[in-house]
């Protein structure tokens, strides 16, 4: 326990978390500080490319572990299943409409890439490198939750299918972050250590600094969201935004242990299951469930759960994973 607290303390005082806090403060104080949209997108392309590539190189180095397929399946199962848990919890804790609850559930079944990247960065910093293929697992967990959520939204009315056209499928499965993450994973896998040697000084050494600036922007975005949606969330919803990641992490823990992953892998599985999407899923919801209120799901995922995972969640998941795997 003391260990968890000291880890959390270390984490809270890292430049990354403090940058997020600075962004949050600036937005809540209505400073006009802002990161241009194009720059934020460029930073996220860098982070996805770097994390995907490094994952691929790691797999190239250590060989393909037999658990890759199992881990992918495990991730898909979690992504399909978590929305049901989330939906039920929302009905207990809040008075949200069926549509809003389904939309929120989709976000929690899917994952947040930035939370994943931050988790990876924390683990690497502690020498607990996760399995390289975890980036593929992250990509596999983005979409399934959307299907469960649409089923939940239209159960009875039978309109689920009509809300999903082929076009939307393509958009979800080929969304930018999946393609970039999987693509750079494959590139890392193919080029291996030699490819890494060529671009290491671009994707490894400046990584944490870039992550700092990106989290500054995330703080700004989260803070602006919180400000603009004042009152959109009741107390029950806020409780959900903190309890749900803990439940997700517990499910991720079970899955990670079941799969026999390394400490880093288990911690990352917990992080993925605990995190909530705020890029791919919101865009899909605008198309498939336009009646659901975006300020509810964006504020919950970006304004409550993301900061929770970033500050308290990740170090706790790492500590629990380390304790239970003896890592």
């Amino acid at each position, binding site marked *: 326990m003391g260990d968890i607290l000291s880890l959390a303390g270390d984490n809270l005082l890292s430049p990354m978390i403090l940058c997020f806090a600075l962004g949050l403060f600036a937005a809540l104080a209505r400073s006009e500080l802002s990161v241009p949209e194009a720059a*934020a997108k460029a930073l996220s392309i860098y982070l996805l490319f770097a994390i995907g590539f490094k994952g691929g190189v790691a797999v190239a180095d250590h060989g393909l572990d037999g658990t890759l397929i199992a881990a992918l399946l495990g991730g898909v199962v979690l992504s399909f299943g978590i929305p049901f848990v989330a939906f039920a919890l929302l009905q207990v804790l809040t008075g949200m409409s069926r549509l809003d609850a389904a939309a929120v559930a989709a976000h929690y079944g899917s994952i947040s890439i930035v939370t994943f990247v931050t988790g990876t960065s924390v683990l690497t910093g502690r020498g607990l490198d996760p399995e390289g293929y975890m980036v593929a697992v992250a990509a596999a967990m983005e979409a399934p939750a959307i299907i469960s959520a649409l089923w939940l939204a239209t159960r009875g009315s039978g309109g689920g299918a009509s809300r999903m056209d082929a076009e939307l499928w393509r958009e979800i499965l080929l969304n930018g972050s999946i393609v970039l993450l999987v693509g750079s994973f494959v590139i890392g896998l193919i080029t291996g250590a030699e490819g890494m040697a060529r671009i290491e000084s671009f994707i490894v050494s400046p990584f944490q600094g870039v992550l700092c600036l990106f989290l500054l922007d995330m703080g700004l*975005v989260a803070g602006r969201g919180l400000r*603009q949606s004042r009152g959109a969330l009741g107390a029950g919803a806020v409780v959900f935004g903190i309890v749900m990641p803990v439940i997700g992490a517990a499910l991720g823990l079970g899955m990670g242990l079941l799969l026999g992953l390394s400490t880093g892998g288990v911690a990352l599985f917990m992080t993925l299951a605990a995190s909530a999407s705020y890029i791919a899923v*919101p865009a899909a919801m*605008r*198309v498939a469930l336009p009646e659901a209120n*975006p300020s509810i799901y964006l504020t919950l995922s970006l304004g409550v759960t993301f900061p929770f995972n970033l500050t308290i969640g990740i170090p706790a998941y790492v500590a629990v994973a380390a304790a239970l795997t003896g890592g």
Partner: protein
Amino acid sequence: MQTHKAKRVEIIIEAPMEGRLTDALTKAGVTGFTVLPVLGGSGRSGRWSREGQVGRAGMVAVICLIRPDRLDGLLDAAFAVVERHIGVVSVTDTDVLRAERF
């Protein structure tokens, strides 16, 4: 300079719907349109701003100049897409040069 009566239709719509709208327009035979970026706005669903947005959020403005007799087809096509979605559609009388282009 010779000008010709036309309609200027302005559709402000969520960015994730842009492709669906322009596809619908194209299917309805409307092949001329221009897409402008939008920085932010306000409506019944509250205030938003593109600043620091992540992902494909935000809105765009689609402008179509069209011959008056083709307006109804355009509006029907557009309405089918925007119906359930937030956004606004306005139609203004205008005059265009080079009518052969419309």
